[in-house]
């Protein structure tokens, strides 16, 4: 277990990146942030010397009735975090009778719309969920809407968070949130179909192609792909290029996109097209949604899917045809590629961020510490994701075989890169996903793809 934690540390340190390095360039970012500070003196203006005094003030007034609002996207019963948040509301009120937590949530598109509108109109909650850090949260920080929490964090918390995991929560040198759980993408294989087709679970590219051929011959769809939503295809290019170009080269290219126009990235696109030409994907991939892909795999419509470990509940549901028949493996290596099997895709952490206008920043941070740890540990126990907190002595008997398998895979990792749409700007993410879709539809050549990618803006994170 200890070993696993160490790996995780490497993982988060690597993915989370680097924000500090890029921080200096953020001239546009700092100006509005200062303005926001002016609006909220209580929140951010104190110097380090004033901070303890401030803390005392609030401690004296701690009997005052306080309401803290939190918005999140864990609303469905299928999401273990839903229960954790709901329980945290009652538990926290018992622990701190003067603090009432009001939680509200909705998922996906609706959450994005809601949170953006609320922030733009100045009606955002005290604490809000932000999609796994990175570029989603950056505009909010640049606009000065979110509160750096360095001054409020207790040393105790910092010691319980796995070392290095805070890096992903740090932007421009300031800590904005605490890590919770993290996700890693792996290749999920339906063992029943592999056996029936006489195929071997692939460890390298040739074996993958061989498996595709055998599965096709046996009448199975080798790989399910929900490219209607475009990000499932992105995951494939993310990992293939980690194999052909290596994570190190990807990181360099984020900082200098001209480097996307190089052999490793062209080869990645070629490999993806190789799979398309080998009929590896379902014919209707362009109209299949993410949901149809995941539920289709769970219903036994395809033999492989490349996704993050949040799909476990679907694959192991009592009603799923795949229950007990799924194994997860690292993405196969590619012989001539520069990457190795220990380079992973994923690793960033979802987080909850505090509003710069929050009236009770101290209490909000205390709740954030409480909630983040709870999600990190209980969420891990319930298979929601992999922990970013010290789980020494935590009972892991509730983990399912898939959870254990994916956690074990993580131990082997040497390098991690988050999904690219977390790293590229909102606009470039759209461009990238569209380009991958065009590669998969064989509408553009690998060379054209690389050429287009080289025109992206340098990422703020690398």
């Amino acid at each position: 277990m200890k070993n696993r934690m160490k790996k995780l540390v490497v993982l988060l340190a690597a993915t989370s990146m680097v924000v500090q390095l890029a921080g200096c360039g953020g001239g546009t970012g700092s100006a509005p942030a200062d303005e926001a500070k002016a609006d909220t003196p209580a929140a951010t203006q104190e110097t380090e010397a004033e901070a303890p005094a401030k803390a005392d003030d609030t401690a004296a007034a701690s009997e005052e009735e306080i309401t803290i609002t939190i918005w999140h996207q864990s609303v469905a019963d299928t999401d273990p975090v839903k229960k954790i948040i709901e329980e945290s509301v009652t538990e926290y009120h018992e622990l701190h009778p003067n603090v009432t937590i009001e939680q509200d949530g909705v998922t996906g598109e609706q959450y994005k719309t809601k949170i953006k509108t609320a922030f733009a109109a100045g009606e955002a909650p005290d604490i809000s969920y932000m999609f796994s850090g990175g570029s989603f949260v950056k505009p909010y920080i640049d606009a000065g809407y979110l509160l750096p929490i360095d001054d409020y964090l207790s040393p105790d918390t910092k010691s319980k968070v796995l070392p290095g995991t805070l890096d992903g929560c740090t932007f421009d040198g300031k800590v904005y949130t605490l890590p919770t759980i993290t996700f890693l993408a792996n290749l999920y294989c339906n063992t029943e179909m592999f056996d029936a087709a006489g195929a071997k679970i692939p460890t390298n590219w040739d074996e993958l192609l061989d498996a595709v051929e055998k599965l096709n011959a046996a009448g199975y769809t080798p790989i399910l792909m929900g490219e209607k939503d475009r990000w499932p295809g992105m995951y494939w290019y993310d990992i293939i290029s980690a194999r052909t170009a290596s994570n190190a080269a990807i990181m360099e290219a984020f900082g200098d996109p001209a480097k996307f126009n190089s052999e490793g990235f062209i080869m990645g696109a070629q490999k993806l097209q190789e799979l398309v030409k080998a009929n590896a994907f379902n014919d209707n991939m362009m109209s299949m949604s993410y949901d149809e892909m995941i539920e289709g795999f769970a219903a036994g419509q395809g033999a492989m899917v490349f996704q993050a470990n949040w799909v476990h509940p679907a694959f192991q549901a009592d009603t799923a045809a795949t229950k007990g028949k799924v194994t997860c493996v690292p993405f196969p290596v590619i012989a001539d590629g520069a990457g190795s099997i220990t380079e992973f895709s994923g690793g960033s952490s979802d987080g909850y961020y505090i509003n710069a206008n929050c009236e009770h920043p101290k209490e909000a941070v205390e709740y954030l510490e409480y909630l983040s740890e709870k999600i990190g540990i209980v969420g891990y126990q319930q298979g929601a994701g992999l922990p970013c907190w010290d789980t020494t002595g935590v009972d892991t008997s509730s983990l399912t075989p898939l959870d254990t398998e994916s956690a074990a895979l993580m131990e082997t990792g040497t390098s991690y890169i988050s999904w690219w749409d977390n790293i590229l700007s909102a606009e470039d993410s759209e461009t990238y996903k569209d380009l991958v879709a065009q590669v998969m539809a064989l509408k553009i050549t690998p060379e054209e793809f690389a050429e287009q990618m080289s025109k992206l803006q340098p990422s703020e994170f690398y």
Partner: protein
Amino acid sequence: MKKILSNKKAITLFVCPTILIMLVIVVVPIFISAYYSMLDWDGLGKGTFVGLRNYMELAGDERFVNSIKNSLLYVFFSLFIQLPISLLLAIVVANVKRGEKFYRTTYFIPVIISGVVIGQLWQKIYNGDYGLLNALLGSLHLEHLQQDWLGQESTALIAAFIPNLWQYVGYHMLIMYAGIKSISPEIYEAATIDGANSRQIAFKVTIPLLKPVLEVCVTFSLIGALKIFDLIYVLTGGGPFFTTEVPTIYMYKTIFDSFHYGYGSAISIFIILECFVFTMLLKLFFRNKEEQV
């Protein structure tokens, strides 16, 4: 009478609440949007005023032009396929001897069902793997016609239009049906006595008398078509490769996915103006027609 009907206080009392609510909830937000449309703004931080630059960029934006083409095509389908079907059904149902009430009631049902349900249903109908449509083709031994209806560029646009067209056929049918029923029976009797057959009656009597109702349907249909969003968004999300994108979807993605609030607002103002201009043109068209008659 005239004096009573010119009661200023009553007019104020009757009209002001409506005008006020429309001003606050509709007109003011339109003006705010118009202001946003002149900003270079991500919707979060501070925007920069750029005047009409967003509109100028729209003019040269291929994706935008393509989305307009798509929505105009949809307008065409609405006006020249959906409405004629509605009209045909209305005439037939209005003249049917038995089951008139049953038909007019059931035909309206899709209108009252939530778009979420309709979207889910059509996704299952079109599913390239196990969809109903492909299954039907299979059972008719037309396997060569089976395809991924929403996933390929050649069929996606039409496939995404059909559920929309279908859902509102009953809506327009009901309005037209009502129009037909309100035509005095004596007119029909007179036509029958003159020896007109049912087709002649339809074209020479019913349709001309229905013109005001048709104008309403055409207007509603036109505005609805230019604002079409939900079902296409659920079915294809504008894809594959923007082939099914309409201006409202492009606007939504620009604002909420790409964080270009200013540019997206310019699209929304364009949509409002587009609706307005088309409605005016329709008015002129129908007025001219009336004068010719």
